[in-house]
């Protein structure tokens, strides 16, 4: 039940009706505000908080009902108004027409209805109007869903955020569990048969968003479907919806944005992968750990080539070569979107960011594969057996002050933009489903595959043996984007003493690259662009904080050193004009 006095705004141009309605509502315990015109009401709704607005269709001129006046309808249908989708409205009229009913009550493309109901003066009794007011406020402001959060799940959005972070305009973030509950309830407002929502898994996303996996329940006995909910700041969610509409929906029937709900600051998207019949699913990371090589290969093939998946269309159909100047655009794109330079700058301790700190920590007794030596005041990195270059030059690459040489033009295409191991869901039939389209759009064509490879290499690999890791890196470098048949022999010939884990990773990565090569060609230029992506994903991994992966036996320092080794190796090859790859 709602607690406390509820505020209602009446936007009604006829003073006698307005006064009568006000008296009835106040007698029923509501606090009532008034506006004599739609313009006045528009301003009051934008500035004052109310629980409900009663809006007359014809409210342009005080005391006069003009037949062409639809100012009240225009107000409630104004999507740019801050109250749209946030404050419920009841529309009032003495002149009902079916098309006005439709314009007031039909949901928009996000599933939001301009008004909750349409009441007719002189037909609906004062008691009926009061009943509707009470029912609307109760439904809107008192969450009717029983939301069941698993014990390990954080209960409110604020727990994902650092306390000192602020919204734009200097406004502090304040999200209560109640507002979050309201947000989730509204996402199911058009399905009254759903009684309960079980939030079984929650993970943090980018830009103060989170993704929750929810199972709907029709009643205690009947389980509904599996939904994926994404919540976050309104502008972030709105961008994701736009991305979904432009880049995903036209190319697949498999993912559906069911509904959007919003409060003043936040919004929620509700996805229904597989039409809501996803059932038990796992992330790609979990699937990788539990599956054999052939199963993982089959999944990747379905992901990139399966009928009806967006990746198939993006990679096969929408590609363009963009004329850029010596790799600068691709370099800048990766550095900006992955925030490599920014993170290196913002997370400094004693003047050094995480990448530089790791590099310099290898100065004495460094790991096999990377050795750092100091001669006078110059630090030099030796990538074992492969040459050396100055730490300062490498850091200039990290900071974006220099770029890796990369001849134009480069491949750009529509990509997912965040193809990490948790945005790929795998159902019980081994079918992959994509979620989280916040970063979907045009970008370097190879970024998705590069990110997925980086996940396998640095997040899922379990080998601690650095000697084997160095050989592993070299095998992958030599393999380029060759076909699977050619690269299998590389694993067989070089990985004789490797652990099963390393062989599995190598085979899966080479299959991934085989898929990419089949789509874009296997030439050295393609591979160079691919390696630029790998370079940045390696750096991003090195500079990330708080790396944890359930079941991971490699320590963060080993994994970061491995990633740094990979980045150094790519930088070394590129610095020498990619000659080493062309000699293969």
């Amino acid at each position, binding site marked *: 039940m709602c607690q406390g006095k509820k505020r209602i705004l009446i936007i009604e141009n006829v003073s006698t009706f307005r006064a009568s309605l006000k008296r009835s509502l106040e007698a029923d315990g509501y606090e009532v505000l008034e506006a004599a015109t739609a313009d006045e009401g528009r301003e009051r709704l934008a500035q004052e908080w109310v629980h409900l607005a009663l809006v007359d269709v014809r409210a342009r001129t005080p005391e006069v009902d003009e037949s062409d006046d639809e100012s009240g309808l225009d107000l409630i249908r104004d999507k740019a108004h801050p109250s749209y989708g946030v404050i419920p409205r009841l529309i009032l009229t003495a002149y*009902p*027409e*079916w*098309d*006005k*009913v*439709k314009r007031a*009550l*039909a*949901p928009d*493309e996000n599933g939001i*209805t301009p008004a909750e*109901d*349409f009441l*007719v003066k002189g037909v609906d009794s004062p008691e009926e109007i009061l009943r509707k007011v009470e029912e609307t406020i109760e439904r809107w402001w008192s969450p009717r869903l029983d939301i069941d959060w698993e014990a390990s799940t954080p209960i409110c959005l604020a727990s994902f955020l650092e306390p000192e972070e602020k919204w734009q305009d200097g406004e502090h973030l304040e999200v209560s569990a109640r507002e979050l509950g309201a947000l989730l309830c509204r996402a199911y407002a*058009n*399905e009254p*048969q*759903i009684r309960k929502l079980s939030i079984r898994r929650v993970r943090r996303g980018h830009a103060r968003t989170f993704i929750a996996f929810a199972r709907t329940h029709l009643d205690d006995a009947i389980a509904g479907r599996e939904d994926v909910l994404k919540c976050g700041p309104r502008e972030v969610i709105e961008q994701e919806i736009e991305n979904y509409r432009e880049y995903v*929906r*036209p190319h*697949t*029937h*498999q993912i*559906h944005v*069911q509904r959007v709900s919003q409060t003043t600051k936040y919004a929620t998207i509700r996805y*229904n992968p597989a*039409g*809501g*019949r996803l059932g038990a699913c796992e992330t790609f990371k979990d699937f990788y750990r539990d599956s054999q090589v052939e199963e993982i290969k089959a999944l990747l093939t379905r992901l990139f080539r399966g009928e*009806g998946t967006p990746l198939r269309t993006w990679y096969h159909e929408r590609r363009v070569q963009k004329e850029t100047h010596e790799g600068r655009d691709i370099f800048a794109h990766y550095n900006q979107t992955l925030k490599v330079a920014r993170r290196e700058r913002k997370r400094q301790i004693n003047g050094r960011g995480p990448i530089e700190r790791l590099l310099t920590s290898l100065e004495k007794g460094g790991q096999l594969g990377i050795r750092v030596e100091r001669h006078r005041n110059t630090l030099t990195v030796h990538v074992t057996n492969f040459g050396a270059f100055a730490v300062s030059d490498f850091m200039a690459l990290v900071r974006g002050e220099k770029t890796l040489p990369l001849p134009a033009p480069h491949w750009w295409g529509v990509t997912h933009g965040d193809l990490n191991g948790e945005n790929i869901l795998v159902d019980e039939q081994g079918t992959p489903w994509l979620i989280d389209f916040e970063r979907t759009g045009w970008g370097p064509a190879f970024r998705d595959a590069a990110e997925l490879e980086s996940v396998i290499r640095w997040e899922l690999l379990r080998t601690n043996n650095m000697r084997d890791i160095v050989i592993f890196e070299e095998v992958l470098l030599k393999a380029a984007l060759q076909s699977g048949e050619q690269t299998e022999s590389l694993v067989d010939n070089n990985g004789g003493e490797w652990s099963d884990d390393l062989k599995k990773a190598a085979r899966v990565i080479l299959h991934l690259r085989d898929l990419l090569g089949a789509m874009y060609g296997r030439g050295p230029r393609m591979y160079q662009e691919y390696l630029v992506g790998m370079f940045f994903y390696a750096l991003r991994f090195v500079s990330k904080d708080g790396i944890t992966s359930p079941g991971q036996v490699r320590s963060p320092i080993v994994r970061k050193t491995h990633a740094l080794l990979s980045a150094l190796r790519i930088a070394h090859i590129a610095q020498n004009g990619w000659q080493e790859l062309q000699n293969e």
Partner: protein
Amino acid sequence: MKHGGKEVLVVTRDKHVREKVKEWVSPESRIRWCRGAQDAKEKLTGEDEEAVIIWDASLEDTPKAIRRLHSVRPEARIIVVSPNPRWEEARECFRAGAVDYVSSKMSSWERRRIRERLRQWLV
């Protein structure tokens, strides 16, 4: 021919409504026809893909039919077509969960609008 796996289920006995619906729905989309709510329920049960349902308001109690159809397919989008649109009926249909209510004698502007909506939902 199916387009993107989605199809339109049209519930009507009226030849005029059938002709109108054919004008709205693009040739690539699949249309299935049935003559009442029970028939529609049977066709919806067990289907994998989401549905758009076009319901002829001259059939049985439309708001009740909408609720029955939603009990089988909660996510289905139901458009009501009425030969004699009335505000009371429109209101009840929206209260029951319809997403649109159109007159079968619609204007060319309205026809374009409904075509665009169907195209977005069926693609």
